[in-house]
């Protein structure tokens, strides 16, 4: 797992936030405080605030996808299947050799990642995470990505959980 994701998980644990439970403002304040703490990872791995914010969106989207309604999981799976129909699972360079999936035209190749435990029907696990991340971008960057029809198609589907 990404080191910044581990850092975020620790911050979540320190704040008392529990998946599946409503979050209080006190817990959100505690989370913000935890994210402000200096940490050794930051010094050695150049983990930036931008990366932590993106990781927060990424991991939060995983939680929403995993704990969300069945219709949402099916929607994501169907979109992944439709976009990658007939594609083979391959190594997703430039990631490590263990990262495999379907390339398609995702704005970033990791969105097409598949996992061994999914067998023959990939869930599209990295679609909500990778596309929710875009909401953490500054507005001009988000506008650039929104103007791409391929990005917009998937982003609108991923955001269906909110509307």
């Amino acid at each position, binding site marked *: 797992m990404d080191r910044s994701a581990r850092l975020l998980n620790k911050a979540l644990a320190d704040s008392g936030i529990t998946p599946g439970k409503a979050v209080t403002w006190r817990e959100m304040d505690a989370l913000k405080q935890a994210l402000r703490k200096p940490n050794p990872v930051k010094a050695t791995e150049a983990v930036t605030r931008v*990366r932590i914010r993106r990781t927060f969106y990424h991991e939060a989207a995983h939680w929403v996808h995993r704990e969300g309604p069945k219709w949402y999981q099916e929607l994501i799976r169907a979109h992944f299947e439709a976009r990658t129909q007939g594609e083979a699972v391959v190594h997703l360079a*430039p*990631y490590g050799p263990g*990262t495999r999936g379907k390339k398609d035209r995702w704005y*970033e190749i990791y969105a097409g990642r598949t996992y061994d435990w999914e067998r023959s029907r990939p869930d599209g696990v990295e679609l909500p995470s990778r596309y929710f991340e875009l909401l953490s971008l500054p507005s001009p960057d988000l506008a*650039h*990505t929104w103007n791409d029809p391929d990005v917009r198609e998937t982003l609108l589907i991923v955001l269906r959980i909110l509307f």
Partner: protein
Amino acid sequence: MLTTVHTLTFPDGESVQARASFESPQDRVPVSWSGSVERVPTTSRLASADVGLLRVVLKRLGLTLGAEWNEVSEGSFDFWAE
């Protein structure tokens, strides 16, 4: 470290390159532009970008400017290596 070079080649043979190096797919890094940069609208000439944003913008520029888009990458995301 992943270094990626995007090239837009116009029908008249002129070209523009955008180059950037990333430690992770979530990093925002400076983008260096070279070649006939004046042919790219200033609003699209990103000073910095992440790897996905840079690809989206260059691909889109290729379509809107009628230029051929090509991407060449070298290296890997060491930070995310497994």
